[in-house]
């Protein structure tokens, strides 16, 4: 599964030859992230976030496993065991702050990774499966992060758990029994905390498994690139190692410096002070807010403030809470349909002027507004803002994107990646920006191009 010119793994010593015959793991690694994986040479820094996401998954697993050695999941002891970690465990404060801020950084890099995919249409054929698996990973991450935030058993842990598990109660007919079954009672309790701890430990390994599938699916067509033009020749690619290991390496260092600024100098700014108060089922906090990375979806949930009724009769068709829950889950589920909603033959947003305008001046501000109002109190003007942004969010993916992809006239694409990087030599017959019409270059998207540029080596 690679291009014909991909370098082959050659074991050097007798030992590596022996291993390669019995269990070719070094060969697999070489082909996955080593010299054996040819990658487009023109990737920009937005393509660094996939590797970073994998790195932060490892940070979370390693710090989390050590924290789990000191944590207890009893309702009377959980909060105290966190303080035990902070005060008595050697460098326990560092582990816990790295884990708490690591979750935030995991979401920062994942959001960058998703936005990259949205702008450069990385979800389009032949990469639909990579995108679908990515959305699955994102959903698993949200579940894992939510359950992790419950574990310290502070006030926000308890009340956040109560609000989020309460969402299941909005489902008609089965809602209430389902909620009681999920929580193990009428409100979060000892059973809830133990099962959340168990699942919080399990799910990261499920994520790691889906990540392997995600990378596997990636290696079949190979990486996308900022022009959206597929790889045509060896000169379009460079081996992953050393080129992208070097680029990812130094960028990882930069991100780790920013990460360290949070862990060591502002470890609590992304959290909430109320979570340093032990959970108290009898005292509701003034504002219940989730962690910042859930705020956009929380805003969508709260945007539906009125029941769907038959006007002037007072007959309720759908309750506001259920509408909010449908919209919140729908806001992520809609990503599953993106490859088929956006039919533009051009991938890269750089060559799609109308799409780019809606992306930069529509979707990105909309997401930022949702994040802001998600953390604001439920009063005007925030409610109105959240409704405008929620309406735009769904219109963007479900209406604007399908229509724009039909009516827009893309800019001319470069003939190849190499040409896009190096420019063409003067007088070689091609015009500036590539002589090919976009349709000609990109038409055979679903199957791979007839000149065989996309064909796997085998």
């Amino acid at each position, binding site marked *: 599964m690679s291009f014909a010119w991909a370098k082959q793994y050659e074991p050097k010593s007798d030992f590596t030859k022996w291993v390669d015959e019995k269990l070719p793991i070094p060969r697999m690694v070489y082909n996955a992230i080593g010299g054996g994986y040819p990658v487009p*040479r023109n990737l920009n820094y937005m393509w660094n976030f996939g590797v970073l996401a994998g790195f932060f998954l490892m940070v979370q697993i390693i710090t989390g496993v050590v924290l789990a050695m000191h944590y207890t999941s009893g309702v009377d002891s959980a909060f105290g065991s966190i*303080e035990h970690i*902070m*005060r008595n465990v050697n460098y326990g*404060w*560092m582990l816990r*702050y790295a884990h708490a801020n690591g979750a935030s950084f995991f979401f920062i890099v994942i959001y960058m990774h998703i936005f990259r995919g949205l702008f450069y249409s990385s979800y389009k054929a032949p990469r639909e499966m990579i995108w679908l698996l990515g959305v699955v990973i994102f959903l698993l991450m949200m579940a894992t992060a939510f359950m992790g935030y419950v574990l310290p058993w502070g006030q926000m842990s308890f009340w956040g758990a109560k609000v989020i598990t309460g969402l299941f109660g909005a489902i008609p007919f089965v809602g209430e029994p389902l909620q009681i079954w999920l929580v193990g009672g009428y409100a979060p309790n000892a059973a809830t905390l133990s099962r959340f701890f168990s699942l919080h430990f399990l799910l990261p390994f499920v994520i790691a498994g889906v990540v392997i599938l995600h990378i596997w699916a990636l290696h079949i067509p190979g990486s996308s690139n900022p022009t959206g033009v597929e790889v045509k020749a060896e000169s379009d690619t*460079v081996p992953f190692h*050393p*080129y992208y290991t*070097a*680029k990812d*390496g*130094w960028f*990882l*260092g930069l991100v*780790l*410096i920013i990460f*360290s*600024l949070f862990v*060591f*100098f502002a*470890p*609590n700014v992304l959290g909430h*002070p*109320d979570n*340093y*108060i032990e959970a108290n089922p009898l005292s509701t906090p*003034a504002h219940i807010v989730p962690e910042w990375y859930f705020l956009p979806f929380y805003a969508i949930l709260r*945007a*539906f*403030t*009125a*029941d*769907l*009724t038959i006007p002037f009769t007072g007959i309720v068709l759908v309750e*506001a809470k259920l*509408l909010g829950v*449908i*919209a919140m889950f*729908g806001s992520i589920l809609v990503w599953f*349909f993106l490859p*088929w*909603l956006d039919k533009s033959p051009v991938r890269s947003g750089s060559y799609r002027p109308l799409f780019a305008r809606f992306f930069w001046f529509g979707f990105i501000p909309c997401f930022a507004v949702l994040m802001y109002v998600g953390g604001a*109190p439920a*009063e*005007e003007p925030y409610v*109105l803002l959240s*409704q405008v942004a929620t*309406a735009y969010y*769904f*219109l963007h*993916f*479900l*209406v604007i994107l*399908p*229509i724009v992809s039909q009516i827009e006239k893309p800019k001319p694409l470069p003939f190849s990646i190499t040409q896009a*990087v*190096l*420019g063409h030599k003067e007088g070689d017959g091609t015009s500036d920006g590539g002589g090919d019409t976009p349709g000609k270059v990109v038409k055979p998207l679903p199957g791979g191009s007839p000149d065989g540029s996309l064909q796997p080596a085998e």
Partner: protein
Amino acid sequence: MTIRLAGIIFGLVLTGILVLWAMIPGIINYASPEHPDYYAFQEDNIQPAGGFAFDGPLGKWDYAQLQRGYQVYKQVCSACHSMKYVAFRNLEQLGYTEAEVRAEAASWNVPGIDPDTGETTTRPGEPTDYFPSPYPNETAARAANNNAYPPDLSLITKARPDGSHYVYSLLQGYTEPDPEDLKKSPNFETPPGLYFNEYFYNINIAMPPQLYPDLITYADGTEATQEQMAQDVAAFLTWTAEPSLVARKQTGWFVIGFLAFATALAFLSYKQIWAGKKKKKKA
């Protein structure tokens, strides 16, 4: 095509419901949020002149201040407030010697069990004991405090926004209501048994004013003004909330220094590796 058509229909229906049933009625009935009647009195936290010693990335503990703050806690706060996550042995971090900590621990009575009868009793503290609670349970604490529960102080500066400054402000915040603010909130009143404090979230706090000038005599001879005691105990409670605060910042400098060096090397190798693959600049 079917997917796109279904998508467009679903998108229009959902946003239609949102706009027609929630948003437009919301605009018609648009009402500015009603502020609670204590809104006008709320003030931003104040901070001590020159800030706290532990502020900023280079912050350090002022051990003399922490020791004074401990004295305030012991002689004033501990009458009502527990500090259950701090042990006597932790006081060594404030600059006390092992013998001093042992003597200090012994000056507190902690719950114990009579070795002869097995009955619960009290005994002098050991360095390994945690600070005892002044009340046997929450019910007793509420009974003694007009049904208010004095919160545990171990984590108080992390459990409130801008906690160190909050504690410093709150302890000095027992003033008379500003007449200007009273005009804005004519219905506001402080019920009997509560106290006006413009830094408390709903202004009426159950804790009476505590710090009066020369309430205590500092062991190091510092003059015990209200501001001095508030500052000292706020610093002390910052330490109890996060004893690793200064060590954390110092470790941070080391980590970031190492990362900066490693990242610079990695960047140079990246430049060298890619040199042949980049577009040549025109000479």
